[in-house]
């Protein structure tokens, strides 16, 4: 049996199941657990307070404090799921995330454990510069945390399960246009990321990329919203006779070079697609990693499709120009095929 769920529903269901399964699991965040409230900014925890009144810890608007609290609780036997309303607020929490959560195990010589899940919505969605950034780049290079991005509901469920059951800190990035949030929290421009969810207790590994479409001519690498744009581009390219393989990078730290490498060896051409400024991007890191490992297989220079090096703009005309779209991906692939 399967059921069709969106990402927000899949996350909500998984949180409830994991809290049911393990009394150490609890949620901590802002505007969660409020009867008649929103269930966080994007409905993920909606209604969970009815079933778990003591385990939905609603905090003041204090991201540094809440991630510090989550760190402390995780170190003495709890398994918190901490979330921010918008990924941009992670900058406020960054000291706790980077200096404590990521380093406690190492600094303690391997005696402290921080089994903590951190969830953060990202992406440009008509909210201007400060509720819109792509935060992956700031955390993928921090040793001591695992960083993943979920592009569909099946992964959302399997990855969240793995993350809650993992004894290490895991940062999960989610895209606001992929949640499938309903009602007042629905997003204009949302993309269908629903999946058929099996009933069984499956998990998705935290360190594996996924081939979403097989192809032989070029490898397109993306995640979150850009994965969906890339799949769209690949469809269009197929009608032009270009066979594009599309990989959901999914695990941003560590990066799964085994899956990526197998594809690069086959196609010899790489196009990386990322929402967020090109400078300092995760795709820059992946490009370097591919060159170091598989440079001899490349038939053309690696190409990156990313946002301009500007803050995220508000007006739709500029936001659409900021965020890579299907035509830009198609054009980049065509150029790669020509060279």
């Amino acid at each position, binding site marked *: 049996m399967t059921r069709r769920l969106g990402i927000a529903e899949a996350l909500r269901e998984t949180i409830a199941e994991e809290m049911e399964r393990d009394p150490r699991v609890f949620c901590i965040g802002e505007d969660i657990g409020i009867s008649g409230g929103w269930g966080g900014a994007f409905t993920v925890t909606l209604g969970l307070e009815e079933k778990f009144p003591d385990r939905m810890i609603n905090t003041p608007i204090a991201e540094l404090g809440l991630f510090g*609290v989550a760190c402390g*609780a995780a170190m003495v036997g709890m398994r918190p799921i901490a979330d921010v309303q918008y990924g941009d607020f992670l900058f406020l929490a960054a000291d706790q995330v980077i200096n404590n959560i990521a380093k406690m195990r190492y600094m303690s010589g391997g005696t402290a454990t921080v089994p903590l899940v951190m969830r953060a919505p990202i992406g440009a969605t008509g909210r201007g510069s400060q509720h819109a950034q792509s935060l992956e780049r700031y955390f993928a290079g921090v040793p001591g945390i695992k960083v993943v991005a979920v592009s569909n509901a099946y992964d959302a469920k399997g990855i969240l399960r793995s993350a809650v059951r993992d004894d290490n800190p895991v940062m999960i990035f989610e895209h606001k246009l992929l949640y499938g949030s309903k009602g007042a929290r629905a997003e204009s421009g949302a993309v269908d990321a629903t999946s058929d969810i099996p009933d069984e207790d499956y998990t998705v590994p935290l360190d594996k990329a996924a081939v979403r479409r097989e192809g032989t001519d070029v490898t397109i690498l993306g995640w979150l919203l850009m994965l969906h744009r890339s799949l769209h581009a690949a469809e269009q390219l197929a009608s032009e006779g270009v066979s594009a393989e599309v990989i959901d990078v999914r695990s941003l730290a560590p990066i799964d070079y085994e899956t990526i490498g197998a594809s690069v060896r086959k196609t010899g051409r790489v196009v990386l697609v990322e929402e967020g400024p090109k400078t300092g991007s995760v795709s820059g890191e992946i490009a370097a990693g591919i060159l170091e490992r598989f440079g001899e297989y490349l038939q053309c220079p690696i190409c990156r499709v990313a946002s301009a090096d500007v803050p995220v703009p508000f007006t739709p005309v500029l936001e659409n120009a900021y965020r890579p779209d299907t035509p830009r991906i198609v054009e980049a692939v065509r150029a790669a095929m020509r060279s």
Partner: protein
Amino acid sequence: MLQYSPDFLLDLYARMVRIRHFEESVKFMFLEGALPGTIHQCQGQEATAVGVCSVLRNDDFITSTFRGHGHALAKGLTVEELLCELFGASTGCCKGKGGSMHVGNMAKGMVPGIAIVGGGIPVAAGMALAFKMQKTDRVAVSFFGDGAVAEGAFHEGVNMAAIWNLPAVFVCENNLYGASTHISQVMRDTNIARRVAGGYGIRTEQLDGNDVVAVHEAARAAVEECRAGSGPVFLELLTYRLTGHSRRDPGHYQPKEERAAWSEKDPIPRFAQVLRDRGIADDSVLEAIAQRIASEFDEAVEVARNAPQPTVEDLLTDVFV
């Protein structure tokens, strides 16, 4: 005072002497070039660590700072595991990966020292939240200095502990200086206990942090309240650092008269006088304690100097479980 057994009081004394001897010896070894890295020391502040930790159980937790040697010894870490850590040995309390600023031992109720000012305050609140959710009577204690009070982490952590009635004791060691800057330059109202009481609606107490028995009693009351579900409590312990902020800091910003006045209030000779006045110990007893601690230290130094260093392979371990 009279209700305490002589053994208990002598133990408090010995614990303070152990910290002082450790700090003075480590300072010498550091200046001698025997130790790598940097050190931040707590000479003059021994009564805060010893007094507070004297009421804690092994399964209670503390957070400390970059100035954590005294807290570690008071919480039950051994001289040897600390010295090994300072020497960078794989037998150190953090296998040589933490160093002076990050000493701790999870099995003894001390998280690795958090060297970002104020960073341990929300962490302690989080441990206290866990203890409450787990329905235990364990308590979390956070040590920090007056400098931390200006941090956002202080406000956020104390506020959350307050709204959730968490079993947390916040121990502000007010030694008048954040690094080299005097408290009067960073606070309009320097009565921290009063500010916290008014700002967060929790019980606070300001007291002489160089009186080890007074600290013990204040901490005992605070911890009992927390165990009974009436936390958190904030303690402002007035004390003074009789050494530099770190490494080779001569502390020229501390006026001579101020330092001299606080030297008069040095918690160790002060408590020694109390013990003598009460007939609990004479000079020979106190001297015997000092001797015992010195030889214990010498043995530990010998072990630490010869302890194995980590191998290059250890670089990559202990990042993840």
